C-alpha cells in the first residue's frame, strides 16, 4: 500500500476511518446489549436425574458439564464430562466457571464441601419421596431462570401421577439391586415411595438403610408375591433355580420380572412416571 502524501488524501482517509470506527462501535453496542441483559447461567450437573430434569425444562443450553453416567436423553452424552458419579473431578468443574453445580448427598459429600469452600453455589438434591422430587424440580426451574416452566412441568407430572391408580394395594414385593451380596432397598427411600405408588409394599421396608445387604433366608421368610430383578447379573430363569427359593410365592406363581429398566425407577426425574407405570403393570398382572 502506498502511503498518502498530499493532505487532501490523508484527510479523506482519516474521515473514512472515523466513519468505519463509529459504525463498528455502534454495531458492537447493538450486539452486546441484549447479551448483557440475558446472560446464560452456566450449570454443571453431577446427577443423572438432574441432567434429565434440565433437559425436560428445555435449559440444556445452560448445561456446560455433566458426568459419564448422564446418558439420557441422547444429547446429554455429548456434554463435557467432569468425571463419574462418585468421583467428579473438582478441577474440571471449577474450570467450567459454573454459576451453579447440582450435586447429591451422601455420595458427593466431599466434593460439595470443597465447592462450597471455593464459593461456588451448590444445589444439593436429596429427594426422599416423589413429593420432594417435585419440589426440587420447581426449585431447579427457578435457579435456571425458568420458574414458569418448572411450575408447568411439576404440574404435568403431578397430574400424571394422580392418574396412576393401582388396582391392588400393598402387594409384597422384593426388589433386588445386586446379587453378590444380595442388596435390596430399605424403607424411607425414594424407591420405596415409587414402589408404594405402583401398588407394591417393599418387604424390606422396615430396614432403615437405603441399600441394605440382606440374607437369602430373609427373602424366603418374608415371602414376596412379586420379585423385581433390577441388575443385569441374574435372569428370571436363574432366580427360579436358586436353591430354597421355590417356596416363595413369586417363584411358584412365576412372577419374577427382569425387564424393567432400573434407570426409570432409580432416577428421581421426569421419567419416574414411566417407571411407576412399568412397575404397576407387572405388579397388577
Amino acid at each position, binding site marked *: 500500500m502506498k502511503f498518502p502524501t498530499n493532505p487532501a488524501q490523508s484527510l479523506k482517509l482519516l474521515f473514512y476511518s472515523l466513519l468505519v470506527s463509529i459504525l463498528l462501535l455502534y454495531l458492537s453496542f447493538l450486539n452486546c446489549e441484549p447479551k448483557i441483559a440475558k446472560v446464560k447461567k452456566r450449570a454443571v450437573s453431577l446427577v443423572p436425574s438432574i441432567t434429565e430434569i434440565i433437559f425436560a425444562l428445555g435449559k440444556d443450553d445452560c448445561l456446560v458439564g455433566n458426568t459419564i*453416567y448422564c446418558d439420557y436423553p441422547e444429547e446429554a452424552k455429548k456434554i463435557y464430562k467432569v468425571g*463419574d*458419579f*462418585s*468421583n467428579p473431578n473438582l478441577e474440571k468443574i471449577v474450570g467450567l466457571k459454573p454459576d451453579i453445580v447440582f450435586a447429591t448427598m451422601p455420595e458427593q459429600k466431599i466434593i460439595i464441601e470443597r465447592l462450597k469452600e471455593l464459593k461456588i453455589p451448590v444445589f444439593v438434591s436429596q429427594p426422599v419421596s416423589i413429593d420432594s422430587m417435585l419440589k426440587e424440580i420447581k426449585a431447579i426451574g427457578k435457579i435456571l431462570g425458568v420458574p414458569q416452566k418448572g411450575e408447568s412441568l411439576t404440574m404435568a407430572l403431578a397430574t400424571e401421577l394422580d392418574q396412576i391408580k393401582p388396582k391392588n394395594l400393598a402387594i409384597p414385593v422384593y426388589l433386588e*439391586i*445386586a*446379587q*453378590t*451380596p*444380595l*442388596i435390596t432397598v430399605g424403607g424411607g427411600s425414594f424407591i420405596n415411595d415409587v414402589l408404594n405408588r405402583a401398588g407394591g409394599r417393599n418387604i424390606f421396608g*422396615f*430396614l432403615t*438403610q437405603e*441399600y*441394605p*445387604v*440382606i*440374607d*437369602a*433366608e*430373609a427373602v*424366603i*421368610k418374608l415371602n414376596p408375591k412379586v420379585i423385581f430383578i433390577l441388575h*443385569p*447379573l*441374574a*435372569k428370571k430363569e*436363574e432366580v427360579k*433355580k*436358586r*436353591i*430354597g427359593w421355590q*417356596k416363595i410365592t413369586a417363584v411358584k406363581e412365576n412372577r419374577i420380572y427382569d425387564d424393567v429398566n432400573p434407570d426409570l425407577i432409580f432416577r428421581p426425574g421426569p421419567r419416574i412416571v414411566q417407571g411407576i407405570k412399568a412397575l404397576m403393570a407387572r405388579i397388577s398382572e
Partner: protein
Amino acid sequence: MQKTLRLGWLWLTLLLIIAIVSSFVFGPTGFKITALAIPLTIRLPRVLLGIFAGGVLSLVGAVLQGLLQNPLVDPYTLGVASGAAFGTSIGLLFGTKTTSLVLIFSFLFALLTIILVYSVSRIKGRITKTGLVLAGVITSFLFSSLTMLAMVFSRKPLTQTIYLLMGHLGIIFTPANLILFIIAGILACALSIYLFSYWRSLDILATNEEAAASLGVDARKITQEIFIISSLLVALVVSLCGSISFVGLIVPHIIRLVFGPNHRRLIPYSFLLGAGLLLLADIIARTIAPIELPLSIITALFGVPFFIYLLKTRL
C-alpha cells in the same frame, strides 16, 4: 496341661460341632423344629462353605508359615487371592451374566496368577523362599491396582465391591453353583490331605535346613510342590467366597501357641479350628445387625483381642 494337649483334636472337633449346630439354629429368620426347610436349604450349603473356606485357609496358612519360616505369611502372601479377586471383578463388572461363569472366571485368573508368581520367582532356574514371597507380594500389588482400575471404570455401587473384596459366605446357590462347589470341595479335600502328607518334611525343614538335605529332604522340590498345591487350594476358596482375611494368619498361630509347632498336629488342628471359628464369625455377621456384615470385619474384630490374650498368657 498334658491332658489338654493330647485331647486337642477332641476339643477342636467339639468346637466345630458346636459351631455347626449353632450355624443351623441361629439365623435372621430364627429356628423352629417344625420348619426345617430354611435351615436345610439355605443354611446347610452356607455351613459347608464356611467349613471349606475356614478350614482350607487355616491349613494353607499353617503349611506356608512352616515352609517359609515367616510368621507374617498368610494364604494370600503368594498373590493368588488378588488374581482371583481381579477375575471376579472383571467377570462381574464387564459382562458375564451368570454367577457360575463369574466363579470360573475368578478361578482361571487365580491359575494365571500362580503361573505368573511361579515364573517371576524362578531366578536362574531356582525357586527360593525369598523369591516366592517377593514375587507373591508384587503380583498382589499388580492385581490389586488392576482390580481398583476395573472398579473405577465400572459403574457399580461401592458396597458390592467391598463385600466382594472382604469375603462373604452368602453366595447364592443355584444348581450350577452347587455342582461347582461340590467339585471344589472334593478337590480341596484331596489337595489338603496331600498337603498334610508333607508334615514330616516341614518339621525337618523347620529345625535345620542344612540337616534336611542329609535326611533326604529336597527343600527346593518341596517348596515348589507346596507352593503349587496351596495356591490351588486358595484359588478354590477365593473364587467361591472372596478373600476372607485374618483366619489363615491367626489360626495357625493360636494352634502353635496352645499345642506346639509339630506339623502333624498343627495342620489338622488348624483345619478344625479355622472351620469352627469362621462359622462362629459368620453367625455373628448374619445375625448381629438386620443387614449382613462383611465377614473379615468380624474375624478381625473378635480375633485380635483373643490372639492378644493368648500371646500375653501363653508366650
